[in-house]
């Protein structure tokens, strides 16, 4: 019998296991791994200019990059041939039924963090006001994580929202577009701050210097095509270190179906995907970290509950393109990054809780992904994209996720997760941004904004929320599931609220905190 079983190898699962080193811990995981990625060694634009044909790495022998032409739209990053493993089999291993939910999840080793934007932000007490946990309790875990994974950024105008961090590495170089934007903001800082708008450098789990056997970032702009870029943190690196040191056991190819708690142990039933056989594993403690939706499904299935509705929190997002006319016709910036360049925070009277946005460039995806969505005949669109790409950016705005009665998940007897959600009325902070940014020569318009479906942001949470005094399908402050003694929830499912900040860093920290507690109960 094991001391603990951890289900899932994403950010939550990996850092639960990290805290549990020194105990006899088993991680159960489906664990798809990336393929080899030949043909993508070097800067993407230099490769595209010099290599006669990049069909395999950029389109794929099964035409993976054409996915959105015939299937439900997924993130442009997730359809690249070498990245499609991240969501492999997601809809067959754990189907979702929904009319209006665009989320996906991952059965890859490392989870959705294999394709994340690497934004890492500490939750402060304002973000945690609905949680039974205070920022001070998460602080030591944020510190340990920061030392372990390496974070670049700056203590700047966004320090009140992200906290002071004396361990930050130098921030990454940003694009000409972002540099100009930041400079103009700084020149009119007082005006912006009076509007409740603050702009600063992103905090990224990306190395600007070599760190812990990983090399610094090389500005090759490969994020849309290549997995496991060493400088961009991936939980797989930590997991592989633990496996090499043999501090945890790891079994891949298993899909956890249910658990059952006995007096002194928890029995986990998992289907071995290759043979189809259901196998049983026993441990004193169980930590569920399979991703919020799948964790919720495991809990409901284990309770044979096909009726209960669990709340779903999700960040509604808005994509606001911006154009700087003065840069129209600029030459391609060969060295760069597809990661978020800057962060913009709105903290004003129109929103409850701050609203956070990331500014991205437009060089990442294939041109054909966007060419046919522009308003001109094709030759005009080619020309427009060619000359405008260095003068455009996309501001991705994340609104806080609010508990709405119509937003919930449940399971049905066929084994599918049913997701019900309704588009909510948003306070239109993008209009505030548009009016303000016009003053510094950055233009946008309401009709250009896109309002993707719920789930697109991949930040769902809240199905089994932490409460001071939990009741059914809630967890206590240490993630223990109500009605159990030895079942814990460590991923986003246990989040009580969903601020607009990226939640991954806090998932990792909270998971470490919960696992530390579990370890203390084990007597470790």
């Amino acid at each position: 019998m094991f001391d603990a079983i951890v289900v899932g190898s994403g950010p939550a699962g990996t850092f639960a296991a990290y805290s549990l080193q020194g105990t006899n811990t088993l991680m159960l995981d489906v664990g798809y791994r990336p393929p080899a990625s030949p043909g993508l060694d070097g800067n993407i634009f230099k490769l595209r200019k010099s290599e006669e044909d990049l069909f395999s790495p950029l389109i794929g022998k099964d035409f993976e990059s054409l996915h959105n032409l015939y299937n439900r739209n997924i993130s442009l990053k997730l359809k690249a041939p070498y990245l499609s493993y991240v969501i492999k089999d997601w809809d067959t291993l754990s189907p979702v039924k929904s009319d209006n939910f665009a989320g996906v999840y991952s059965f890859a080793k490392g989870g959705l963090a294999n394709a994340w934007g690497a934004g890492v932000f500490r939750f402060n007490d304002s973000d945690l006001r609905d949680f039974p946990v205070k920022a001070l309790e998460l602080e030591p875990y944020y510190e340990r994580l920061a030392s372990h994974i390496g974070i670049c950024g700056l203590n700047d105008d966004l320090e009140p929202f992200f906290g002071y961090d004396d361990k930050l590495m130098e921030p990454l170089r940003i694009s000409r577009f972002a540099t100009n934007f930041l400079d103009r903001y700084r020149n009119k800082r007082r005006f912006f701050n009076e509007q409740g708008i603050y702009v600063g450098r992103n905090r990224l789990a990306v190395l600007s210097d070599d760190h812990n056997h990983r090399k610094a970032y090389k500005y090759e702009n490969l994020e849309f095509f290549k997995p496991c870029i060493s400088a961009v943190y991936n939980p797989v690196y930590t997991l592989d270190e633990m496996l090499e040191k043999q501090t945890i056991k790891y079994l891949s190819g298993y899909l956890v179906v249910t658990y059952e708690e006995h007096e002194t142990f928890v029995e986990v039933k998992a289907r071995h995907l290759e043979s189809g056989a259901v196998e049983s594993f026993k441990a004193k403690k169980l930590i569920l970290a399979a991703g919020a939706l799948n964790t919720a499904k495991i809990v409901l299935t284990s309770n044979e509950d096909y009726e209960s509705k669990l709340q779903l929190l999700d960040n509604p997002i808005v994509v606001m393109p911006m154009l700087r006319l003065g840069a129209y016709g600029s030459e391609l910036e060969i060295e760069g990054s597809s990661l978020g360049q800057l962060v913009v925070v709105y903290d004003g009277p129109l929103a409850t809780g701050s609203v956070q946005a990331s500014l991205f460039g437009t060089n990442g995806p294939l041109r054909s992904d966007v060419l046919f969505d522009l308003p001109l005949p094709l030759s005009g669109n080619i020309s427009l994209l060619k000359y405008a790409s260095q003068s455009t950016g996309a501001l991705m705005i994340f609104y806080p996720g609010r508990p709405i009665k119509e937003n919930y998940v449940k399971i049905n007897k066929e084994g599918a997760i049913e997701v019900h959600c309704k588009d909510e009325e948003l306070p239109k902070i993008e209009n505030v941004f548009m009016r303000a940014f016009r003053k510094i020569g950055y233009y946008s318009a309401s009709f250009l904004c896109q309002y993707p479906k719920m789930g697109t942001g991949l930040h769902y949470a809240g199905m089994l929320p932490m409460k001071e005094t939990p009741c059914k399908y809630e967890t206590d402050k240490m993630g223990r599931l109500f009605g159990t003694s030895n079942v814990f929830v460590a991923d986003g499912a246990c989040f009580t609220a969903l601020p607009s900040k990226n939640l991954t860093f806090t998932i990792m920290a909270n998971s470490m905190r919960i696992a530390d507690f579990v370890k203390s109960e084990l007597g470790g």
Partner: protein
Amino acid sequence: MKFAESDELLLEREAIYFHYCFFRKEELSEEVIARYVNANQMYLSSINYQKINSIEQIINRQLDVEAIEYVFRIINRKNILTTKIQILFYLIEVRSQYFEYFFNCRADRLRALASFTHSLLLAAFKFVKGKYLIWKYDLV
């Protein structure tokens, strides 16, 4: 499902003609043609070419595919003609031969603005022409 030789030939002619309309100066590689055929066979095998007459008519009559596609795209973004041309564009943009069509390698604001102005004027012309061609040949 085995494709009829005639369907494969039609797909090859599509690739060649569509490519010619947009990249007149470039030679289309056999590899791209084969991939275009494969992609269509994988994902667009259910098209009823008797019901959707536009593609064969466009090729046989050497019609302005850019104008027709533009109007179809305005009416329905997911129409078959746009999807087929998008497939072709995915296949050619990953070849170095076409790099400078898609990426601006030198700063030239004047050229960029002139190109944009030309594109706007062209849009109006192509729209009217596309509508006319669709009406004249009863394209679906």
